[in-house]
């Protein structure tokens, strides 16, 4: 067949709809899916900001009310407030930058990659953030003359959190890798010229 014949075969479906759409079912499904579809980046950002703010406020309140002079705890409060502020600034920067991508296939992929890169950086940052918070918590407990096993439990908790965050980081990295492969395919395959693969 020549290509024109293939096109005629293709066009033949225009007069014969192969499917009918159940509008009511469609409306229900869209509503259900939309409610369920949460934006992971948005959610993790807000959650991290909230967790840092709440934890910092909690530790600060305890220190103030107990009139504690534990410097490590105050350092931790400052660190967590700083982290929340940094996350808020990055979030505003990200939202502002969302409009610079066009809605072409490549533009959409670039946007998805930029979002994936952002998630990778965010998860990496949060993973490393466990170290100063963990260290300050343990020093704080030890200088507060608490039993050593309390510091041990805190250490185990932070080690587990570090590995869990490492696993989460891996998910974002693999997602970004897949998108990059797709982007390379779209960008480079064409420039290599015709082939019969």
């Amino acid at each position, binding site marked *: 067949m020549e290509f024109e014949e293939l096109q005629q075969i293709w066009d033949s479906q225009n007069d014969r709809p192969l499917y009918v759409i159940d509008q009511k079912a*469609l409306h229900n499904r869209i509503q259900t899916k939309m409610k369920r579809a949460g934006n992971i980046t948005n959610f993790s950002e807000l959650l991290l900001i909230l967790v840092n703010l709440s934890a910092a406020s909690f530790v600060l309140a305890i220190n103030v009310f107990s009139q504690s002079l534990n410097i490590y705890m105050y350092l931790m409060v400052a660190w967590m407030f700083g982290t929340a502020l940094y996350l808020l600034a990055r979030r505003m920067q990200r939202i502002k930058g969302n409009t610079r991508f066009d809605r072409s296939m490549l533009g959409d992929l670039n946007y998805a990659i930029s979002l994936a890169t952002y998630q990778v950086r965010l998860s990496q940052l949060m993973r490393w953030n466990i170290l100063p918070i963990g260290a300050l918590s343990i020093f704080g407990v030890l200088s507060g003359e608490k039993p050593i096993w309390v510091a041990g439990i805190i250490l185990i908790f932070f080690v587990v959190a570090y590995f869990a965050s490492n696993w989460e980081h891996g998910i974002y990295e693999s997602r970004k890798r897949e998108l990059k492969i797709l982007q390379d395919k779209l960008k480079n395959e064409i420039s290599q010229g015709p082939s019969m693969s």
Partner: protein
Amino acid sequence: MTEKEQQQILEEWISQHKALILKIVKVYAFTSMDKEDLFQEILIQVWHSIPSFRHASAVTTWLYRISLNTAIKWTKKEQKHKQSEALENAQYVLQESGLPIDDRLSWLYEEIHKLDEIDRSIALLVLEGCNYKEMAVILGISESNVGVKINRIKKILITKSKNYDDNGI
């Protein structure tokens, strides 16, 4: 834009351009459940895109962009999470019209389905009669690159169609 206005535009676009979306669904999804899932995913993305539609391009061009982007990403996701969502108990949106299907058309869909995810979108746009400029806008690549791709895909389809003519396969 209110949610009601957005819903009205979606309904209008669906009634006018459902054939366009259904062709993309058929090119990217094979089983009934996959077709359902992809169709719904495309409509959700179209719904989200309505406030950013500025009439700078035709509605069809916009719908091709959104639908093809969604289909390509869905294909990637689908390869990893085949059973990610239980659609067995879901309310079905797409219903077969019951009209007999031309064997040659089914064969053509199968052949397009064998292409990689990006070539599939180009094959579909060529068969839909889009010109180089429109395709470049939809795909975000240069017209010359589109031309190279089209020639390759046309050659593949014509070669396969010769086998179909000769052997009926």
